[in-house]
């Protein structure tokens, strides 16, 4: 029983991290219909930014984190501006290929700038490593922190989307760019804002990821990025609540599969991919249907 409970806690933790990354994916996809392959790499850069703020500029850890997150937002903003905006009217495949190129570029640049050797991320207070024992369950303080941040940010994003004018404009663009621009909303600004928010969420997740698994390396963003995309598809791409639910489902599945069938650990990623493929075949719109794609 405690085995299950422990696994459930671990799964929630992993799921929360996936969910935060997936929100950025799903928002960008909802608006631009673009799989932003570079999303995971922006996450990685955010973590490096935070690390260097603390180590090189000797900022306090919390300030370093915030500056890192802001810088990641700026990076997302520039990536959109430099690489995606010129291709907005190009075929979608071109945008997708460019996104792959950007991902490849950000990774290569990180190798050149930061070196390919993993760096340790021990720049946060020891307090987070403390363990609370609760009825045979061992829960790290970090768990509460990560879950707390995840839920605060999640509700923040939902509030922004459904309760503010900007959010309404974002949702409007997601359905129809030309009409929205006719209605007087500045499409470019709103798309930029989407990228900034998505990148900052990813960086936040990345930093918490690095707190839990304290090492940083240039390829750290790829797998979480891909998994978060799968989470977004599970939830119904374009839907923010869907992305969160998808993230938790995926995180939970991965942990439970390995926890109860240790022999299948080698196939762990296969489960995520199989879920993805089955879902794409039979319910491509995911759990929360947002858009139907038919347009002739």
């Amino acid at each position: 029983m405690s085995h299950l409970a422990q696994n459930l806690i671990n799964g929630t933790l992993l799921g929360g991290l996936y969910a935060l990354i997936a929100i950025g994916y799903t928002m960008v996809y909802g608006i631009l219909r673009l799989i932003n392959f570079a999303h995971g790499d922006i996450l990685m850069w955010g973590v490096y930014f935070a690390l260097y703020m603390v180590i090189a500029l000797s900022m306090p850890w919390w300030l370093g984190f915030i500056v890192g997150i802001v810088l990641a937002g700026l990076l997302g903003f520039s990536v959109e501006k430099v690489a995606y905006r010129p291709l907005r009217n190009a075929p979608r495949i071109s945008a997708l290929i460019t996104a792959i190129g950007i991902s490849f570029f950000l990774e290569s640049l990180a190798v050149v700038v930061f070196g390919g050797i993993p760096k340790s991320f021990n720049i946060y207070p020891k307090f987070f490593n403390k363990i609370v024992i609760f009825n045979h369950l061992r829960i790290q303080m970090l768990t509460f922190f990560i879950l707390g941040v995840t839920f605060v940010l999640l509700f923040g994003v939902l509030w922004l989307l459904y309760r503010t004018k900007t959010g309404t404009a974002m949702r409007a663009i997601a359905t129809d760019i030309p009409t929205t621009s006719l209605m007087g909303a500045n499409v470019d600004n709103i798309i930029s804002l989407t990228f900034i928010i998505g990148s900052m969420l990813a960086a936040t997740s990345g930093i918490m990821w690095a707190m839990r698994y304290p090492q940083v390396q240039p390829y750290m963003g790829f797998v979480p990025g891909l998994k978060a995309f799968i989470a977004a598809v599970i939830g119904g791409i374009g839907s923010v609540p869907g992305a969160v639910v998808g993230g938790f489902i995926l995180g939970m599945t991965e942990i439970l599969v390995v926890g109860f069938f240790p022999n299948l650990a080698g196939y762990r990623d296969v489960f995520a991919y199989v879920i993805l493929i089955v879902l794409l075949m039979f319910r491509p719109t995911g759990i929360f249907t947002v858009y139907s794609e038919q347009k002739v």
Partner: protein
Amino acid sequence: MGTKRISFKTNFILTTVFVIGVGFLLLAASHSVGDYWVRIITLMAIYSIMAISYTLVNGVTGIFSLGHAGFIAVGAYTAALLTLPIQQKTMSFFIAPLIWPLNSIQMGFFPATIIAGLVAAFAAFLVGYPSLRVTGDYFAIATLAFAEIIRIVIQNSYSITNGSLGLKGIPPYTNIWWAWGWLLVTIIVIGSLKFSSYGRALRAMSEDTVAAGAMGINVFKHQLMSFVVSGFFAGIGGALYAHWLTTIDPRPTSLGIMLTFFVLIMIVIGGLGSISGAVLGAIFFAFAAQWLRIVESPMNFFGITIPGIPGMSMLIFATVFILIMLFWRRGIMGKDELSWQYIYDHFAKKAGDQD
């Protein structure tokens, strides 16, 4: 507008002369440039086969697959398991013995390559049949997922593929003639396909699937067909690659997503949808990967040593890749082919400009 059309006969003669010329060049090269460059020249042909088969799907047919490395891996493993000497098999498989009948088979390179192609084509069918029901970026992600599944299964099947230990001692059959010979076959078959009625249907689909469907083209069937043909030649490329390298393993960096990215770089440089572009892109990639060693190793300019920057070559490739996508999306060839007609038109235009 007086562009002359070059007749079939002229075309045929010129092409034959060109192929024989390239043959002589290769013959000369294999005797003069040394083993290292011969290896690179062989690699160029292997990359070209991978790139052509990839461009058939991603460029000509216009469906964006990210699963190419999966089929290359299937081809590489199939061929390697068929040509590996039995004694080598018993030595390599020390975690779990190889299953029957693979443990008692050893065959020649040519049949093994063909079987590798067929098995890879079958894998492409199995992947394509479900994946092609979704379109666009969903298809890209589905194929990426399938390729990863293939890789992970290879990684975990110790009694068939030797798992993460990989295979070694594969006979080094791939030489300059096998590689360039297969490249010629690939160019002829895929070129012939591209310029047949089927190729027109594929190109039409790449522009507008709805209109193509309305013109009576079974879009799904044609996409699947293109995918399977591509899988066949990817398998051939994999078989050649395995016998060139003599050892293969299922790491993400050797037969995983990295390889798909590399081939993608080649066809983006060459122009999505062009066979000759794919060849040029592959040759450029194989050459530049060696040539860019200059920027990575310390340089000595009159006594001043400039330290090399590790990782620079990949950064340069990535930068070139993005610049092409942003400013020169047609790449070297666009969707055109480097035909005699193309060259003639080009020069005719140049001459016209000077008048």
